[in-house]
């Protein structure tokens, strides 16, 4: 059962590898690249939200840290892209470690607001600093190769997805996280250290998010606090996960694809109504919680049986 699911994932991944061979339109490839990016951001969000039960409303902080570290190293220190992005991921992980230590001891809901406040604080800090270019943002060396960025993004997100699949669905780690999610005190009696597990999950979520941020920075060649650290990054990741189905790896992927498609269509026709998008996002989040407690994944009948089998 589990192996078949892995082969399903691998099949989808293989199909995605072929996309640049079929799609030659630059704009379309750009859209696919961004779709892959959002899959990555949704899946990394879900490690903490779905598996551990802690909502990180400041997911954008790690994305932004990765983007800015990569940009600063490339622009100000002349680094090559790959080590810069890797360090961006490491910096995001370190950020999670430092931020997680006191805040993960808070009750779930307070953690959510604490991370949200952290992201806002970091955004403000970046706005005020010189090295980041403040509100003017930073321009990175341009590399005009849409195929390259599609593969880099897919590589990073793919490695992340399969590493998560192994750690969360196969290795003991995933079950231990779920135990903490379900009952922290009960988990402690069974020899699990909840704080340690939560911090591990937080770092595991932050590192790839930072790397994705780095790829994003190099790809779009221009970053500013709003595009990398703004609320929208966290808000969209949240809506994708809640809408798709929390606590699974497939749910966030489905949610990311659906919401991203909607977003793309919306921006194509209604780009003047940015605020309307915010209202719709909010509405989808609130309505999903009330009417789709298990997300879209929960209404797919044959999947539900699989979940019972497995979860």
């Amino acid at each position, binding site marked *: 059962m589990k192996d078949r699911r892995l082969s399903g994932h691998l099949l989808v991944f293989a199909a995605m590898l072929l996309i640049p061979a079929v799609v030659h339109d630059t704009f379309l490839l750009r859209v696919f690249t961004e779709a892959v990016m959002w899959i990555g951001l949704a899946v990394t969000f879900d490690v903490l939200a779905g598996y551990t039960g802690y909502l990180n409303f400041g997911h954008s902080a790690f994305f932004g840290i990765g983007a800015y570290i990569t940009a600063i190293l490339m622009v100000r220190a002349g680094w090559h892209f790959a080590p810069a992005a890797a360090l961006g991921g490491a910096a995001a992980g370190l950020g999670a470690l430092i*931020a997680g230590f*006191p805040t993960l001891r808070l009750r779930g809901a307070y953690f*959510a607001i604490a991370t*949200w406040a952290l992201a806002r604080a970091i955004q403000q800090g970046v706005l005020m600093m010189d090295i980041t270019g403040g509100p003017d943002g930073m321009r990175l060396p341009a590399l005009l190769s849409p195929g390259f960025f599609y593969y880099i993004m897919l590589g990073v997100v793919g490695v992340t997805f399969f590493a998560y699949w192994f750690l969360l669905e196969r290795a003991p780690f995933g079950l231990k996280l779920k135990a903490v999610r*379900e009952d922290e005190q009960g988990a402690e009696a069974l020899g699990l250290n909840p704080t340690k597990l939560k911090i591990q999950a937080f770092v595991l979520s932050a590192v790839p998010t930072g790397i994705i941020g780095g790829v994003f920075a190099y790809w779009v060649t221009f970053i500013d606090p709003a595009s990398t650290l703004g609320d929208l990054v966290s808000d969209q990741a949240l809506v994708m996960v809640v809408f798709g189905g929390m606590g699974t790896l497939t749910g966030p992927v489905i949610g990311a694809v659906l919401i991203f498609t909607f977003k793309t269509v919306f921006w194509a026709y209604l780009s003047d109504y940015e605020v309307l998008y915010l209202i719709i996002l909010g509405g989808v*989040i609130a309505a999903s919680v009330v009417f789709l407690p298990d997300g879209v994944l929960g209404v797919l009948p044959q999947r539900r049986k699989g979940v019972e089998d497995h979860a």
Partner: protein
Amino acid sequence: MELLPQALVDGIMLGAIYIIIAIAFSLVYGVMHVIDFAVGEWIMLGAFGGYYLFQWTRIEPLLLLPAVFVVFAAIGYPLQPLIHRVLSGRRGNPLLMGLVFTFGLSLMFRGLAQTFFGFYSLSIPSRFSNGSFFFQNGGLSVTISSVRLTGLVYALVITGILNYLLKHTDFGLGVRALAQNRDAAGLMGVNNKRTSAYVYAIYVGISAMTGVLIGMILSLSAKMGPDYTTFAFFVVVLAGMGYLAGVPAAAFLLGIIQSFFLIYLDPGYTLLAVFVLLYTILLVSPRGLFGKGV
């Protein structure tokens, strides 16, 4: 240094407003077990409610407070059953679902406000807006603006009313019983649903009224909500979660930090400073400033 007493006095008067926000926020958490992410948006909507009500009636905004309360309490009341439904859902972690739900609401409110109220900063004119008292003692001088003083008086009045309501009425007894133990309160004949709905209505009403005062003292804009959500959260965590007696000190501290940044440093760093302070305190004492939270 001559500005130091001024910063302290300003900060304390501003802090008084935060006490009200934090108390209402804690009350809802205690009774309904929901952390309302939309608290800042209620404040924002209340501020605009007061602003337009004033534009329309031209009555002194302070006198409009009861009307704002009634209107927003009426908006909050029917929302409670929806939140209740989210919290009692079959999903594993109802607390988080409540938070996600109110987060969704807050996005909608903010989006709607930006659509209808625009992006500009406004203020609510009051006949107290320009008046001030000036105190001088040797080299030290302090100006107390009458509108800030009004805020302090407002905070005292609301605290007094809430205190009376909670400690000396049947409704208050029900609320306290509910906060202590849901099942036992039910056995005692407390109508769980109705009490929760009243508490939520009162909370929304109070937050909205407080918004009007903030609109008078500082300013209002469709984007102000998140700041006040952060502040409400800051005060509650700093006080120690569930430790109401710690709220005033935490609220004053926040007000003072804010006025210091306004007077001496760059107000753009306020949020950063607030977060660093919060982080440090949580690191040293996870149960708040007084170590008495849960």
